[in-house]
């Protein structure tokens, strides 16, 4: 745990130290850092205005999907399949929710850890999915929305393919390395 605490300490220091470095470097290059900061910062709200409608669309979809019972139905279909392959059924709730929502996936993950134990196979696989699969649909909506791109060609299928590969590998690597 000590090594972990050290790494976590370094990671907490990264941003402040980086800011300090940027400001000092700027001053040595005779940049008016305050004016420079403000002139860059003025575009911030414009970006938010552009992504806001996309955020609303994504959030109402994710929330309704969970509240309607559709998420539970998808889970129960997957869990009946997973028992044939010796995969803990909880893994599939993780696999379905992680690409959709970051905060919802933290909730689902915490629930899995609490109900099946922190060192269970279900928890370990879910943990690897948490760390290695991104909130794909959120990233797609926000990043594409911010610049107004509507035609995405084969981007969405490639991202979904990468998620499926990631989830499969999470199951394989945990079973192979930890159990």
């Amino acid at each position, binding site marked *: 745990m000590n090594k*972990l605490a050290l790494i*976590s300490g370094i*990671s907490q220091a990264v941003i402040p130290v980086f800011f300090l470095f*940027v*400001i000092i470097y*700027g001053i040595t*290059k005779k940049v008016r*850092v305050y004016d*420079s*900061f403000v002139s860059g*910062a003025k575009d*911030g709200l414009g*970006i*938010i205005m552009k992504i*806001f409608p996309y*955020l609303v669309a*994504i959030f*109402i*979809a*994710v*929330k*309704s999907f*969970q*509240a*309607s019972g*559709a998420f539970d139905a998808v889970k129960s279909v997957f869990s009946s399949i997973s028992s044939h392959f010796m995969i803990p059924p909880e893994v599939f709730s993780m696999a379905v929710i992680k690409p959709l929502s970051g*905060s919802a996936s933290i909730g689902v993950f915490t629930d899995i*850890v609490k109900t099946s134990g*922190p*060192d269970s196979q279900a*928890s*370990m696989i879910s*943990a*690897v999915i*948490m*760390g*290695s*699969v*991104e909130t794909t649909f959120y*990233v*797609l909506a*926000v*990043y*594409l929305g*911010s*610049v107004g*791109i*509507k035609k*995405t060609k*084969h*981007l*969405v299928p*490639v991202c979904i*393919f*990468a998620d499926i*590969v*990631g989830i499969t*590998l999470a199951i394989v*690597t945990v079973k192979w390395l*930890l159990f």
Partner: protein
Amino acid sequence: MNVIWAVIMAVSIVFAAANGRFDAVTKAMFDGTKAAVEVSLYLAGIITLWLGVTKIIEDSGLIHKISHFFAPLFRRLFRNIPPDHPSITSITLNCLANFFGLGNAATPLGLKAMKELQSLNTEGETASFEIMLFIVLNTASIQLIPFTVIGILAQNGSANPSAIVLPTIITSVISAVFAVGTLFAVRRLMR
């Protein structure tokens, strides 16, 4: 995205009808709009902060140092971006933020990178290859130490929460290679 969004919404509403949960879904939709407002307010501040900091990086010429350092890697991946273009800095900083698990720095820098990549895009509302590549790199989420996850495991009494680090790195690196490889393969096939 059109298909996916429509399917999720339609499935949700049909399930709501079947389960008699119209009230819950109506409430969920309003909760969704509230969550969107909260997230964008939260993002507004940090995007502004990072845009300010990266402007200092550009004005002081630090951008050239950063892009030179990472040029060998990014020149191979992003061949159509001119050297010293500001997008290289944003892409680099976004990838570093992802790598160190600094989630709230990664999104603002990613949005800045998108804006700059879009300025090089000649196809208007169609995603360019560079934009697709950048998004795929982001959704692959290569991360050194997943702190949030380890934290939750440790809190709940895991014997060895950092055991997941190695499988997580292996998984994300291989899936990133797969995704980037697919993107290049599709481009080759389409020519």
